[in-house]
């Protein structure tokens, strides 16, 4: 669409009105929370994860996640020698009850996974009705009163973090405990992590430790070739992580 002067004259006031809505946007449940002051992300420190599964259990409890489905889960990797592209991975019940005792050779580590809260999210792109969306503060949510249950978003997520809740027949996924972070709490998974491997971060907060961390550590995101602008950052992640 060509930006002619006439169009601009019409568009600018309309945009200003829309932005006013966004600026004024405060989820009624937490009146001091301003949508435009936050841009949520998470930092996962892989060398610290002990695979205890506390995060998986806490999430299930906090968010009523049905059995057999996972808003977050932990994977255990075993990489032998140079075979970085062919790791052995297991995730028994998503790691909910921890992992069985194990002594194996090779390089072993745990990787917690969750919705990457992509800024350029493919799941919101394909939703036919606008039931899943990115909030102005960077969290990808699902409106379960609007979702049709067509499952297109589940197919479109490269990370496998979405599922259909059999009780509501709508799509569901990690909401970054939106109901907690808008009240100044941290997410359930970060709250219970005994080693601090999972940390909630607010990229718009200049005092958040994540800025310094990202500057001084080697950090990756999952599947960067998918260009989803994922906002979950993994410190010390091995190249074998899929």
């Amino acid at each position: 669409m060509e930006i002619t002067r006439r169009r601009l004259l019409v568009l600018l006031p309309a945009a200003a009105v829309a932005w006013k809505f966004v600026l004024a946007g405060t989820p009624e449940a937490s009146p001091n929370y301003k949508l435009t002051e936050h841009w949520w992300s998470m930092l996962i420190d892989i060398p610290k994860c002990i695979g205890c599964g506390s995060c998986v259990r806490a999430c299930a409890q906090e968010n009523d996640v049905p059995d057999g489905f996972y808003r977050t889960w932990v994977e255990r990797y075993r990489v032998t020698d140079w075979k970085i592209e062919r790791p052995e991975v297991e995730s028994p019940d998503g790691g909910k009850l921890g992992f069985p005792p194990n002594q194996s050779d090779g390089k072993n580590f745990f990787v917690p996974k969750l919705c990457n809260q992509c800024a350029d999210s493919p799941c919101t792109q394909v939703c036919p009705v606008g039931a899943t969306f990115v909030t102005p503060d960077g969290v990808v949510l699902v409106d379960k009163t609007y979702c049709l249950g067509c499952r297109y978003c589940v197919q479109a997520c490269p990370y496998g973090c979405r599922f259909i809740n059999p009780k509501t027949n709508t799509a569901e996924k990690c909401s970054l405990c939106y109901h907690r972070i808008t009240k100044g709490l941290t997410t359930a998974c970060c709250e219970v992590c005994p080693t601090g491997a999972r940390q909630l971060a607010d990229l718009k907060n200049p005092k958040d430790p994540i800025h310094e961390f990202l500057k001084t550590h080697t950090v990756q995101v999952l599947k960067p070739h998918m260009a989803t602008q994922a906002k979950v950052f993994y410190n010390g992640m091995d190249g074998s992580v899929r």
Partner: protein
Amino acid sequence: MVIAIAVTVFAALRTALVPRSFGQYGHYRGAAIAETAARPIAFAGHDVCEACHTEVVDQKKQGKHVVVPCEACHGALAKHADDPASVKPPKLDTAVLCARCHEANSAKPKGFPQVVTADHSGGIACDSCHQPHRPKIEDSPAKPATEARK
């Protein structure tokens, strides 16, 4: 003519059916943000626990478990924090609970304290010897073995 009728019907339907807050922030129902934020909370957060249980905080400060949040072991306790008198936290089975973190597993970081519980304790409850809030045995002698549970 038919097209005009169809368009009018469509427009009327749309006004009636599309939720009011749709399009407020983007192509979605703006009210959904507030609805999502209004979910009840299950985990109180360790700050809330520490406000009352100061003696445990002091104990934890002397050991390695200072970094372990209360609800990591004690479970979701927002209900207890709201009404401490009537909602009691459940008793924990340390034989199962502690192993989740401390059972030896080659994927755990090398420096992390881990044991093969079968060899280490033969399966008895960990708090027979360890005090969970200050786990190092030398620091705090544990309860007598008679209280050990299988």
